[in-house]
């Protein structure tokens, strides 16, 4: 696993730490950084590595398990589940919606209008496509 997956955990953010950790793992799974069948770091290792409360890591793993992204095997640890294409697709869409939600929140805080956003999105996507 790529050690940078958790680099940008931000304790000052209003997004709870366990959600941030779970999101990093979702992204790593969606991009293939964490392949199906691969083991997640142990709670002990991750808590100590990124210096968060072990309970926070446990909570993140539990959420991922409930969402069907990972499975825990008694005594062996937590592993990325094999996701079929429909599930992967659903997961990508979920991530996309979350990104947009964050964008909208930040835009509102900065006083950016909807029209500004739509225009910016058009411009940026064109730049990327060209």
């Amino acid at each position, binding site marked *: 696993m790529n050690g940078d997956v958790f680099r940008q*955990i931000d*304790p*000052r*953010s*209003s997004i*709870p*730490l366990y959600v941030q950790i779970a999101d990093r793992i979702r992204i790593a799974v969606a991009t293939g950084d964490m392949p199906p069948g691969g083991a997640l770091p142990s*709670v*002990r290792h991750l*808590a*100590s*590595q990124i*210096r*968060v*409360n*072990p*309970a*926070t*890591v446990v909570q993140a793993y539990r959420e991922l398990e409930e969402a069907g992204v990972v499975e825990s095997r008694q005594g062996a640890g937590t592993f990325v589940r094999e996701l079929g294409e429909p599930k992967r697709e659903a997961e990508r869409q979920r991530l996309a919606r979350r990104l947009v939600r964050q964008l909208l929140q930040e835009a*509102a*805080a900065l006083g950016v209008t909807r029209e500004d956003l739509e225009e910016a999105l058009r411009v940026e996507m064109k730049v990327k496509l060209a």
Partner: protein
Amino acid sequence: MSYAIETFDLAYRAGKHFEIRDLALKVREGSIYGFLGPNGSGKTTTIRLLLGMLKPVRGTISVLGRKVPDEMARIMAQTGYVPERPHLYPYLTLEQAVRYHAAFYEGFDMAYAGEMRRTFGLPLDQKLSHLSKGEMGKLHMLLVLAQRPKLLVLDEPTDGLDPVVRRDVLSALLDFCSQGSATVFISSHLVHELERICDWVGVLDNGRLVVELPMQSFKNGIKRIRLSGAPSLVGDTPFVVLQRETTGAEQVWVVRGWQPPMAQWFQGVGASVREVVDLDLEEGFVELLRSSRAPVS
């Protein structure tokens, strides 16, 4: 729910100017409890009361289910304590210091101590008088963790340490916490540091407990709200107003106990909410102290 530390109606006085009043702490078993407060707010005094080193003028204290000070020896056998200014004999080598400390604790885990010593990169044969401040900070943490205590009481354990050492020391602490169900009571004025590791927060100011909450509620509940048309007189609010400021046509309120449906309350008084901003722990902490010192009328 059982508590690793519980005080009731605790009071203490030192001289004319400092007192601890009505202190009711409840530290849940297994939690990592951040004890925050500015310098001089009484954090160290509280810790000394908890560990039987000072005598309260009133109130009761129980630690690990036992009475303070009657059962102090049994409490301390299961408690790892790093005081504000720890004392170790400077002429001992690191190895001797570990053995000396181990002699006081039945369950001292020599193998674990060795493992941490290697992780920390501490030299066995070095005299303590020759260790750097950072190395001493690591050693203090090593000694209390290797006790495998049920309760850790850490008084500003990373104060004065550089960021790299702080990181190593906290990693070791969290590694220990994930191995079992120990309770950690950690005092600090370094708010950021506590933000990522604690699940409970207690804020002390001027000898009084201002608030005691799960970290997440603390962080979620305190908001800065930008308003227009807000009333100048505050009647009954569904939240606690910590701070109010007016700049031009706009008002900024800092409130505690906020939940989104409460925006309706503002409509009811003819104000409109322009923005609700989350505060991080440090900002929340500062606003909380400001208001506890000068309550909003």
